[in-house]
């Protein structure tokens, strides 16, 4: 039995016993005392009554003094064992008659009864009174007239009463004990009847708690416990049923879940397959795009390259014309291909914008320079007219911004037959900064209905436009997508037959940098251009940096001017075809100004020359830096071949990781020319070793290297040197490779062939990171082959082809890969698409394992290299 159970039984027992016991005791005591009192009272009553009766009976005997009348009374009473004596007294309390002779304390007997020792003395007067004639009040007599004629005393012994009382007490105690025992037994019995069912119910509950839901409580005789057990049974049954139902439901649900999981797994597998397929498709697409980019551009590049080479040689005019057409159409085709590839990249959402600092004014001039020959070829003036002073540097993707400008300007030039194309940039410093560009032309204009689908892909105004002007119809679509990618906006205002204006708004922040302050030149400059806007733009550029500048509306006016000038800037119309006007203008001016500096701004689509040592020819549109340099600003060096080679004010320690010798050589020369301290490594492992020796400011890491590639090496380096600046070098990058690079923490990629401007930006970024106070440098190389000699190139080609030949002879085809990699590398840098293509063909042939194909590809490569050597 547990403590709880015993407590319940004990409690029930106690609760039953205690009150009953108390009650028994109380009642026993009460009844005992009552009985004792009753016994005493009975004695008193009996004594009193007997004495009264005796008094009444003894009236005659006492009144008459006749003892014989009294004796029988006494005798009768003495028969009662309680009565010890009967005493008759007269009115003076003298004994008239008594049977015993013990002492009688008459004086003490004053009450109706007195207890003296163990005797009770009952005293009553003997009165005599007349008969009450109640039927007639005339015969009635007052009670007070009853006179006392004597006394009677009844002597009663207390011993029998005491004995009786003892009997009563004993009897009561016995009854109490019996009552107690009966109470105990009853309490136990009834307690058990209550606790046993409760214990039973408790057991049932425990079993139910253990999970034995088939446990049931027995019925009880007690109504409430019976209801409780019925309730518990019902509850257990319900729980059992619910559990069974729940189990069934769970089973069902589990089965359904298993089926669902199986379905999901199947679907997942299918999705994985589909995803793999999609990834494969994406890879294929990326590879396709890259290959297409390469495959399409490479032949075209060859065509363009060879065409230009042919043009250099003296050919008959007709041939020159044909070559010009070939060149133009090739360029056009190249443009179309680039558009399609760019559009595809944009549609695939794989294009990522860069955020590097760039000079907006230089960006505009570069874009215009590229379009200038086409514009000037059509006789159109290409005018750069900034509305306000642009910030010296902005932070964005210059490549894509240039693409936007190029597309819009080329579009404007395409659809303009005469007049001009004006580019008017404006920088709004409010709300974080925005670059607004307006490109206005005097072309055919755009109809209202076409404006709606202006930025849709593959759409031109109508088929006649396509026939007249050609083009893929992707230019504006690409512009629109690029603008949207930059979270900008573009709109167009146009009037058919009058012209169009495209306004682009790009949110671009300024890049805080130390402004390059141009010194003021203490010169006075005269400006003339037949196009007043060109003249005005030139004037705007020069008026703040020269002592005095003035624009003239004609050479005549200029020569008439009394003001003496140090320099004359003369612009010539785009339709200028030969040097005759130049010569004429030169003569005119030299007539007055014998030796002042002359700067002639000529169209860029053809070559001009003048025989004057103080005359400099600049192609339109002329960038401010070119102009400043021509005018004589010291901190800008400008060579004859439009080369500016700035130098780093503080040397950067740059580690170049490139396994290709020529690429390494080229980059080395670039960086050395820029004033950087360059270290080299050919593998990823070597990079890690060299970084351990000394942490460089910058690493230029080729992705594809033997032993450990660039991505792996970068991963390891980023762990130990998380702040180390690493720029990836690659000829081609797919989105996946870019993702892999981003994952390692490399976000800057320099594509081969190396873009000097980009390299410049990256170096400036590294400089700024090293010390933000350092001035920015500008590396401008337009001709990479200037960094290496032809003989070096030839020697490298010979070396590589000899090694390949040796491997071919020994059938060590696998070893050829290294050489092919080298060949592909520098042929890419030096823009030798034919060598690059042939090397790629040999590489593919080796993979095919077909001897004939291999030899065929080898011979082709050898032919191309021999041609180059020649």
């Amino acid at each position, binding site marked *: 039995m547990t403590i709880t159970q015993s407590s319940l039984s004990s409690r029930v027992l106690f609760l039953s016993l205690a009150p009953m016991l108390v009650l028994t005791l109380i009642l026993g005591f009460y009844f005992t005392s009552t009985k004792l009192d009753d016994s005493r009272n009975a004695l008193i009553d009996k004594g009193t009554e007997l004495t009264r009766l005796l008094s009444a009976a003894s009236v005659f005997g006492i009144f008459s003094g006749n003892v014989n009348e009294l004796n029988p009374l006494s005798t009768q009473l003495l028969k009662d064992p309680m009565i010890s004596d009967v005493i008759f007294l007269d009115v003076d309390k003298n004994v008239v008659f008594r049977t015993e002779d013990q002492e009688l304390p008459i004086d003490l007997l004053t009450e109706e009864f007195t207890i003296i020792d163990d005797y009770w003395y009952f005293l009553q007067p003997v009165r005599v009174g*007349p*008969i009450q*004639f*109640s*039927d*007639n*009040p*005339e015969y009635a007599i007052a009670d007070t*007239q009853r006179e006392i004629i004597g006394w009677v005393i009844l002597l009663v012994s207390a011993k029998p009463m005491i004995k009786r009382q003892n009997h009563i007490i004993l009897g009561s105690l016995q009854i109490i004990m019996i009552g107690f025992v009966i109470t105990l037994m009853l309490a136990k019995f009834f307690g058990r009847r209550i606790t046993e069912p409760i214990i039973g119910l408790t057991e049932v509950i425990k079993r139910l708690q253990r999970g034995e839901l088939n446990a049931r409580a027995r019925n009880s005789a007690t109504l409430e416990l019976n209801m409780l057990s019925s309730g518990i049974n019902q509850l257990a049954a319900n729980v059992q049923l619910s559990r069974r139902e729940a189990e069934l439901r769970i089973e069902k649900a589990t089965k359904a879940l298993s089926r669902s999981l199986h379905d999901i797994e199947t679907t997942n597998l299918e999705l994985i397959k589909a995803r793999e397929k999609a990834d494969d498709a994406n890879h294929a697409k990326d590879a396709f795009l890259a290959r297409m980019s390469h495959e399409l551009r490479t032949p075209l590049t060859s065509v363009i390259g060879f065409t230009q080479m042919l043009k250099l040689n003296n050919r008959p005019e007709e041939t020159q014309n044909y070559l010009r057409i070939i060149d133009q159409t090739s360029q056009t085709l190249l443009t179309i291909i680039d558009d399609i590839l760019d559009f595809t990249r944009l549609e695939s959402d794989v294009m990522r914008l860069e955020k590097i600092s760039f000079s907006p004014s230089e960006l505009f001039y570069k874009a215009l320079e590229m379009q200038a020959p086409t514009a000037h070829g059509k006789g159109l003036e290409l005018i750069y007219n900034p509305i306000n002073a642009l910030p010296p540097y902005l932070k964005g993707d210059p490549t894509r911004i240039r693409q936007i400008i190029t597309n819009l300007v080329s579009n404007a030039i395409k659809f303009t037959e005469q007049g001009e194309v004006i580019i008017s940039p404006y920088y709004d410093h409010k709300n974080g900064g925005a670059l607004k560009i307006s490109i206005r032309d005097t072309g055919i204009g755009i109809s209202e209905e076409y404006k709606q689908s202006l930025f849709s892909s593959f759409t031109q105004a109508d088929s006649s436009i396509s026939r007249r002007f050609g083009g893929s119809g992707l230019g504006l679509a690409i512009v629109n997508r690029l603008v949207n990618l930059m979270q900008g906006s573009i709109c167009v205002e146009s009037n058919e037959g009058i012209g169009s204006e495209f306004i682009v708004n790009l949110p671009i922040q300024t890049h805080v940098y130390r402004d390059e302050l141009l010194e003021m030149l203490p010169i006075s400059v005269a400006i003339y251009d037949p196009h007043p806007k060109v003249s005005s733009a030139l004037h705007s550029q020069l008026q703040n940096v020269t002592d005095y500048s003035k624009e003239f509306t004609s050479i005549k006016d200029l020569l008439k001017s009394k003001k003496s000038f140090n320099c004359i800037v003369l612009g010539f119309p785009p339709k200028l075809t030969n040097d005759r006007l130049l010569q004429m203008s030169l003569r005119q001016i030299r007539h007055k100004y014998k030796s002042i500096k002359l700067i002639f701004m000529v169209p860029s689509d053809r070559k001009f020359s003048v025989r004057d040592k103080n005359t400099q020819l600049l192609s339109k549109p002329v960038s401010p830096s070119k102009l400043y340099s021509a005018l004589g600003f010291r901190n800008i060096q400008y060579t004859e071949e439009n080369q500016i080679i700035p130098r780093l004010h503080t040397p950067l320690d740059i580690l170049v990781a490139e396994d290709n010798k020529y690429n390494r050589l080229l980059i080395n020369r670039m960086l050395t020319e820029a004033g950087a301290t360059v270290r080299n490594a050919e593998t990823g492992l070597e990079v890690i070793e060299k970084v351990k020796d000394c942490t460089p400011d910058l690493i230029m890491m080729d992705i594809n290297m033997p032993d450990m590639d660039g991505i792996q090496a970068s991963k390891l380096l980023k762990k130990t040197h998380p702040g180390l600046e690493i720029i990836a070098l690659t000829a081609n990058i797919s989105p996946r490779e870019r993702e892999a690079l981003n994952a390692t923490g490399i976000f800057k990629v320099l594509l081969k062939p190396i873009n000097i401007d980009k390299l410049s930006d990256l170096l400036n970024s590294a400089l700024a990171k090293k010390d933000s106070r350092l001035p920015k440098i500008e590396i401008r190389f337009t001709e990479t082959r200037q960094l290496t000699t032809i003989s070096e190139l030839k020697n490298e080609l010979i070396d590589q082809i000899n090694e390949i030949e040796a491997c071919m002879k020994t059938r060590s085809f696998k070893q050829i890969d290294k050489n092919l990699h080298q060949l592909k590398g520098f042929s890419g840098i030096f823009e030798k698409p034919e060598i690059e293509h042939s090397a790629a063909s040999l590489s593919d042939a080796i993979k095919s394992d077909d001897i004939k194909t291999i030899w065929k590809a080898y011979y082709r490569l050898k032919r191309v290299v021999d041609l180059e050597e020649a």
Partner: protein
Amino acid sequence: MNGYVRLKVSLKSFFMTLCILLVLCLSIIKSYAAVSVVLSEHTQTYLNVVSAMEQNSDHPVQVYAISDQTQSLASSQLFIAIGARACQSVLAAIQSHQSLFCTFLPSQAYELILQTTQASLRLSQEHLSALFLDQPLERQIHLARLIQPDAEFLGTLLGPNSHHLKPHFDAYSRKHHFTPISARLSESDNPVQELTPIIEQSDVFLSLPDNALFNRSATRWSLYIALRNKVPLIGFSASYVDAGAVIGLYSTPTQIGRQTGEVLDYFMKHKHLPPPSFPNYFSLSVNRSAARTLQINLPEIDEMLDALKTSK
């Protein structure tokens, strides 16, 4: 005009008639107020007397208690005092032109009142009379004979207020062929001692109502000793019979009231009262248990009543 006069005359006549009637009523009321009944106690016994009286008389009476009697003193012609106390009270206050009839009281009480109240001297016999409660002596002795035809000795106890009856007792006893035995109980005598020999000698014991004896419990001793000696005792009330007397001769309040009503009528008719008398109407009560104990065969009560009425 004539109609108005006629109306006036009619109204006058009507009012006069009304006044006459009123006076008559008042007279009647006054005449009705001429008899005043005064009760010794306003209890049922006395009211029974009044009730029986009213039933036996055509004349209305005004009933008063002793405390209220003064209201009727000025106008009452006749006073009927019921009980000794009422008699004494009215007699003390009554005027000489007024009459008083005392009823429902013992003859001894009446005699005592007459002796003690000076007013009784003012009133003549025609204006002062009584009807006694107790029975005439001869009737009681006659009864003794009726119950014990063979009895020789007739015993009685005379007290201070009844001792004057001894010659009458002796005479009537002899008339009914009894030998009279009597004792006189004074204040200092022990009633038991006096009674015991009388009763032991008597064949019949006659208990006479004497106030003085009442105080001495003579009635009780008489009864006790008579029972012990198996002597039949003739009581004077029903209570006595209940106490143990073999037979009791008495008049009930109703019987007294009835006779009082007759007296009233007599008075109203004759304008004077008849002389004091004992009751004409009486009753007998028997204790059969006592009779059995005494082994007495008593005649039927009606027989005894007839016999007693006949012998008036």
